């Protein structure tokens, strides 16, 4: 069930009773789940079932209406997004987000922002220590690019990359923050089958680099292939949780998807 993990079954990320209300819409109600170090967990559900809302609550992009988020026994709820990143939680977005005018490497260097130990003023004054640290982090950024297969695109302006490459770049920026866990909101959106297969390989390799994964996806093939566990949402509620095999045969899940004509 669990794949590669350093400390076995210790809980890494825990959502407790997460709820979110937008005016009259209860987008998420009382959702709890936990993921362990080294796991790849899938978060699935029909359109509008609250998956992105769940990620936004976990990352701190949206304030919770109720509930708590714990990362490695630290409470994240109420912290700004950048604080969650420092504590080891990174995320990507359902719609492609990049720094369009920067090169791929410069994009990823911005993901290294929290890793700089030398103050920003040293960078302005161009001290030797700041230059040295910058070089070290360029190496780290290049590794992040290589993890998603974008090493050959290092110096290309981000807006000139293909749509699929831009989505991979967004993942590389998140990986550059050295996260313990990364939340991927529909990483395969807009990708063709071959690109999706490459993405599956990239995701499956992440735990071996010390990064656990929570992935939202509509493509059941990809989810079933990469995930250790799957959490299923419907109308903002958790309706099932289990291994891919258990989820495939779960009657509530089948009903939810048939009800939406949205199955894979």
């Amino acid at each position, binding site marked *: 069930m669990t794949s590669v993990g350093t400390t076995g079954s210790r809980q890494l990320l825990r959502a407790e009773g997460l709820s979110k209300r937008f005016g009259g819409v209860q987008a998420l109600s009382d959702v709890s789940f936990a993921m362990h170090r080294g796991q790849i967990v899938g978060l699935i559900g029909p359109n509008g079932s609250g998956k992105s809302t769940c990620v936004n609550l976990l990352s701190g992009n949206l304030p919770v209406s109720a509930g708590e988020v714990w990362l490695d026994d630290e409470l994240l709820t109420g912290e700004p*997004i*950048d604080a969650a990143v420092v504590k080891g939680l990174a995320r990507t*977005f359902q719609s492609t987000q990049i*720094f369009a005018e*920067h090169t791929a490497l410069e994009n990823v260097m911005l993901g290294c922002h929290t890793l700089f130990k030398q103050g*920003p003023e040293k960078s302005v004054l161009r001290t030797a220590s700041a230059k040295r640290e910058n070089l070290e982090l360029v190496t780290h950024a290049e590794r992040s690019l290589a993890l998603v297969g974008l090493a050959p695109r290092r110096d290309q302006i981000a807006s000139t990359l293909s749509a699929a490459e831009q989505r991979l770049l967004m993942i590389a920026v998140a990986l550059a*923050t050295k996260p313990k866990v990364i939340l991927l909101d529909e990483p395969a959106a807009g990708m063709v089958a071959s690109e999706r297969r490459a993405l599956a390989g990239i995701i499956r390799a992440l735990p071996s680099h010390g990064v656990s994964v929570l992935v939202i996806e509509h493509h059941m093939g990809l989810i079933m292939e990469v995930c250790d566990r799957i959490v299923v949402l419907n109308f903002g509620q958790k309706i099932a949780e289990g291994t891919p095999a258990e989820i495939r045969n779960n009657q509530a899940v089948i009903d939810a998807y048939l009800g939406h004509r949205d199955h894979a």
Partner: protein
Amino acid sequence: MWTRFAIVAVIAAAIVFPLFVTVNYFIHLAILAMIFMIVAQGANVIQGYTGYVSIAQGAFMGIGAYASALLSMRAGFPVWLSMLAAPIFTAVAAAIAGYPALRIKGHYFAIMTLAMNMVVFTVLVNWVSLTQGEPGLPSIPSPEAINLGFTEIAFEKRRAYYYLALAALVLVMWIVAAVVRSRVGRVLLAIRQNEPFAEAAGIACWKYKLFAFIFSASLAGFGGAIYAHYMGFINPTPFSADASLNAILAVILGGSGTLTGPLVGGALTVILPEALRVAEIYRLIAYGLLLILVVIFLPRGLVPAVVDGVRSISRRRKTP
């Protein structure tokens, strides 16, 4: 290599300029232009690099001008010290005003800064015991003469003040260049391009926005101080929201987010209205028309347009 050569050439040209220009009025315009370039470069930091339009540069210029004038006249500071204290004073004012304003995202920021400008203007007009209100502050001293042994530089002289303004501008350009080319500059550009993604990358954007705002304001304050001790007289009029809009215009005209754009734009916004005086009553109409044409045909500003033009010509030459 080429840029370094161009920088040296431009500075050299600026140094010899007063030797060839006999009309005092042109020197006067050049000084005002350089002061306004400093203010516009400040606007560029927050507007061009960070992507947040501030409509308060005029107010900060005024705060710097009054701070420096009053420090030297009432508190007995040497003028040189007042001129250096002015940007610090302005920075403190910007920090207090900017902290709440920058917690807000997007367009409300522009409106908040416009309100700030109006408040500062009203204070300058109405706090008569300090600012002497609408009639203004007369007899603001020039910087103390510098004795070089064999000769003395007196800054009441227009030519001497020209070099003071030039030195200030070069200093400002050097500092701004160092900031925008550093890691800080990359973060500012990232905020302009995609603030939510910058936050997701772990950047505490509000700190950098606050820095950009304070930095831009302190440059305006510095420009204001140089203005006050040059004119020898200030009243609130040149520090209204009009001045802020001119600074925004200078950035757009010259090319926002480029180091040289505000130089070109700042010079144009000072010199164009003067040059168009020949057209008398049609002056403002002609000025407005010119601006509209630039914005329509060169939306990124003059400097990027010229750079692109030169590049495409040299490329055409290379490939016959």
